[in-house]
């Protein structure tokens, strides 16, 4: 049996990769260790959040699956940062851990061109630094032109609880013990990373009177631009807020040496943004309490996820710790917390297309690249799938720029800067976040999705209509003038804004911070414009000056981005570059001068010299 593309691993990256490939017409095989664990959510029952939620929207705009599947599995949904500007608003969902994988599996099974096989891959088959297939742990070889590795935390996975360390993937699944050796043999530099998950508590053993209720928003939202609302906003499942107590801290301090981390049993580097509870107590010792959330995992079973309480303490200490929390005095732990160590590859060994530089037609995506989070994994899977398919079609890869998508920021950061700890996307990583909003992901990326072939003509035409409608509304507002008549000024004062002295356009009026788009319906009929069209115009007019500034800044960055650097450039031949920069450049081989400028240790002077050198060499320098 021969395939165009083999995807190894059925997590969030693998699902998106496999679907993208199959939908782009590639005969695709998805190999997973356990079909019933496809699209599993082994950690948080939550999808979205600042930056990450916007990534889910971007996945949808490009024709990926995560947004649609999340919409089908909502327990609760809210828009975050509503009191701040529209640029940082993002959706965060509690997703049902049973429904999400079930819906995703359904989609995979119904997908043409896609087969699923349950097995473990033990080795990559290559010929002259080019992938030719995989060898399963049972010895069977399967040929393919492309392999996409989306193995998550399974490579040489070790579960850690206290001093106990055993080889296992999440959920007690079998770890993949041979593939990382195969990667190492091919010359890849591997990293050892660590992450962890908190205990799960039986819902009926919790006294919720001692917790604070955290509900969803009283308004319908959807991740997907399809806008299907599968949930009942009046019947969302709440989360609950509690805080650690003095006693909790005492227990942890007294037992610190028993944790895997402080007992010295951990080799991997854990994520800074998501420290274990023992880490928080040691590092922020002046803090009297830490915030924890009890989050529902599913309507099909009654485990509550204790967010913020990840730990690698032994079971008996975990019991004491949990029972010291308000409302959890008699709690029953359904699953104990654990830390997990796994192998990842140094992502600087990747091109921006997510193809490895060492082995042609080998792509990697998700946690294997040192990222963390379902959303970060899914978007990489999508991009790897798209670029693998484009390559087989003989086309240029899709490389999203930092001013186009959070996905672009994420991938550029990974392949350019590398990682020290598992990488989480944050809004502060994006220089142009005013351009990368939740509301305009389709305006940024739909076109690409359609060109690639992941967005249907029908959806694309609807999108074009939306764009036209936005243009029409802007021009209507710009040409409609209101004059300082008595009735106009009465109305303006009644909505809390200053009266007019001379006539202005509605566009100027809606720029006022206190005036909303809907209040303009006093002057014009807005009913023919959809809510998201009105919202778009409102944002664009209100923040016009700032958006224009951001565009100008992006323009400056793109200038350097346009200077391409040959991938095989020998930096030893470039005179006068500082030695640290030379070493980094030889290691990373950036694709553009822009990428080179973002490598740490490469300073402006090095970029100047490199630029001069490239000009002398007569390399492509499009202006």
């Amino acid at each position, binding site marked *: 049996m021969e395939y165009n593309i083999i995807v190894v691993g059925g997590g969030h990256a693998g699902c998106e990769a496999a679907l993208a490939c199959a939908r782009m017409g590639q005969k695709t095989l998805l190999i997973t260790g356990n079909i019933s664990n496809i699209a599993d959510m082994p950690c948080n029952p939550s999808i979205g959040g*600042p930056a990450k939620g916007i990534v889910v929207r971007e996945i949808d705009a490009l024709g990926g699956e995560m947004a649609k599947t999340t919409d089908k599995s909502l327990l609760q949904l809210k828009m975050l940062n509503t009191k701040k500007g529209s640029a940082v608003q993002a959706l965060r969902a509690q997703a049902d851990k049973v429904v999400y994988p079930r819906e995703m599996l359904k989609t995979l099974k119904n997908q043409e061109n896609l087969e699923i096989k349950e097995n473990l891959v033990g080795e990559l088959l290559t010929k002259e630094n080019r992938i030719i297939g995989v060898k399963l742990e049972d010895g069977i070889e399967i040929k393919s032109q492309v392999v996409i590795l989306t193995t998550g935390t399974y490579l040489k996975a070790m579960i850690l609880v206290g001093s106990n360390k055993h080889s296992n993937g999440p959920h007690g699944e079998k770890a993949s013990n041979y593939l990382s050796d195969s990667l190492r043999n091919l010359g890849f530099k591997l990293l050892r990373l660590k992450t962890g998950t908190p205990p799960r508590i039986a819902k009926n053993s919790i006294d919720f009177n001692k917790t604070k209720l955290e509900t969803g928003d009283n308004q319908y939202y959807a991740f997907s631009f399809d806008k299907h609302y599968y949930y009942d906003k009046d019947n969302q499942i709440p989360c609950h807020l509690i*805080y650690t107590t003095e006693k909790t801290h005492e227990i942890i301090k007294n037992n610190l040496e028993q944790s895997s981390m402080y007992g010295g049993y951990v080799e991997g580097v854990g994520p800074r943004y998501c420290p274990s509870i023992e880490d928080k107590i040691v590092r922020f010792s002046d803090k009297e309490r830490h915030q924890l959330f009890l989050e529902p995992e599913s309507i099909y079973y009654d485990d509550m996820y204790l967010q913020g309480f990840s730990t690698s303490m032994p079971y008996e200490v975990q019991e004491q710790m949990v029972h010291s929390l308000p409302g959890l005095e008699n709690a029953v732990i359904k699953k104990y917390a654990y830390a997990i160590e796994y192998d990842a590859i140094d992502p600087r060994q990747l091109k921006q297309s997510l193809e490895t530089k060492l082995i042609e037609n080998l792509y990697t995506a998700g946690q294997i690249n040192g990222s963390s989070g379902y959303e970060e994994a899914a978007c990489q899977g999508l991009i790897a799938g798209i670029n693998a398919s484009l390559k087989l079609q003989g086309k240029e890869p899709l490389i999203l720029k930092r001013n186009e998508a959070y996905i672009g920021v994420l991938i550029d950061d990974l392949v350019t800067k590398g990682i020290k700890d598992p990488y989480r996307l944050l809004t502060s990583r994006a220089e142009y976040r005013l351009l990368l909003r939740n509301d305009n992901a389709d305006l940024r990326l739909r076109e690409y999705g359609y060109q690639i072939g992941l967005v249907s003509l029908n959806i694309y035409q609807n999108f074009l209509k939306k764009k036209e409608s936005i243009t029409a509304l802007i021009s209507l507002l710009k040409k409609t003038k209101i004059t300082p008549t008595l009735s106009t000024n009465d109305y303006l004062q009644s909505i809390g804004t200053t009266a007019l002295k001379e006539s202005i356009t509605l566009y100027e009026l809606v720029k006022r911070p206190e005036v909303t788009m809907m209040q303009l319906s006093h002057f014009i009929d807005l009913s023919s414009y959809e809510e998201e069209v009105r919202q778009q115009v409102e944002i664009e007019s209100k923040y016009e000056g700032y958006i224009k500034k951001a565009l100008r800044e992006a323009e400056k960055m793109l200038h350097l981005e346009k200077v391409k650097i040959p991938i095989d450039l020998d930096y030893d031949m470039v005179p006068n570059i500082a030695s640290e920069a030379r070493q980094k450049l030889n290691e990373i081989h950036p694709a553009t001068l822009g990428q080179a400028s973002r490598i740490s240790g490469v300073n*402006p*002077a090095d970029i100047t010299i490199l630029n001069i050198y490239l000009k002398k060499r007569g390399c492509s320098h499009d202006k």
Partner: protein
Amino acid sequence: MNDTIVAISTALGVGAISIIRVSGNEAVEKVNQIFRGKNLNSVLSHTIHYGHIIDDQGNDVDEVLVSVMKAPKTFTCEDVVEINCHGGIAATQKVLECVFNVGVRLAEPGEFSKRAFLNGRIDLTQAEAIIDIINGKNELALKGAMQQLNGELFAFIRTLRDKISNLLVAIQVNIDYPEYEDIEVVTKNQVLESVNEIKNKLIELIQQSKNVKMIKDGIDVLIIGRPNVGKSSILNKLLQEEKAIVTDIAGTTRDVVEGKMQIDGIQLNILDTAGIRKTEDIVENIGVNKAKSLISPADLILCVLDGTKNLEEDDKDILNLTKGKNSIIVINKTDLPLQLDLSLLDNRKYIFVNTIENNGLDLLKQEIKMMFNVDKIIGKDYNYFSNARQLSLAKSAFDALNDVETALSNDIPLDIVELEIKKVWDTLGEITGDVYTDELIDKLFSQFCLGK
């Protein structure tokens, strides 16, 4: 980039010794070819050797000391040889020619510093300070420039940037972790407070830079007054030399006379002018108009009045012209009875002098020192922007801070305000060369004079 370059690195024609600097891969080898003394190819790095420079005929050209400094611990991070030869145009030129003759090319303006910069030896502010050392007109300026070489300005800018980054991080945490109720939420007032603090520091730095500009270029002092009130006498007493022609015929000084003096290391450029009066004399009129035109660019104006007479129309004109300017009224001829009605001076600062008996001149100097904070400048750290590029960036940072304030008062959400704050951070980074722009570096190096 690696070829060997040479230039005279001391001012031509001044001083007893000239230094000719050679830099590049072949610096040692090339100089050795024209040097009679030790074999320079085998000497240790950072050593000085006595010998002679010889021409292609083997004749002595000059008796010299040669310093050999090998990469990377040199100014350019390349091999550097410095030839200390006898000063004077002719001798220096001859040695330079010998270096040319062995195939070393003349450096382009600023090429040494450019190499130093490109080789990571100095940051942008340091590079700019080198221009200042070259241009430094007096000791104080030189001291300022030297301290900047040590990166004091850099350090100060960095403390400002640290403050800003703290603010940025605090806001970013609020954005990325909105669910966390026990993280402190940054308020508009907090931002305003920090912005104000940074603004004040920046203003102080900008103001100080302007003062320092005066230290470097000198304070332009204009002496102005009706004819024959004793302007030239005051100039002469200040300069203690007979620079201006002093007569008692009104209108003797027809052109602007310049003299330089130092008060505690600060240079005063004193301009004496033609007496201002309505005149029919064409030549004298040119002088009068010139004097008037000098009022506005001057840093300080000394308005000289004759104490033995009450204010005349011409005096009133002068007082009007100099209103609101940095000025001191100097009332001359106090050896004779005072006829001047002091109440007509609008409470402006005045000092009595008597050029004949040498009274009051020290008081005048004292007053000038106070006006320009000379003591403060001398005693202070030399944190300042040393050139137009830095100053204009500092001003853009200041403008950006104003944008932050405007945004806050317009109820723009904090996350957008944060982007504006980021701009301040970036702009300050540009001063120290942390932010990359092509044009910046090209512009910088075109400002360098030959040899450094």
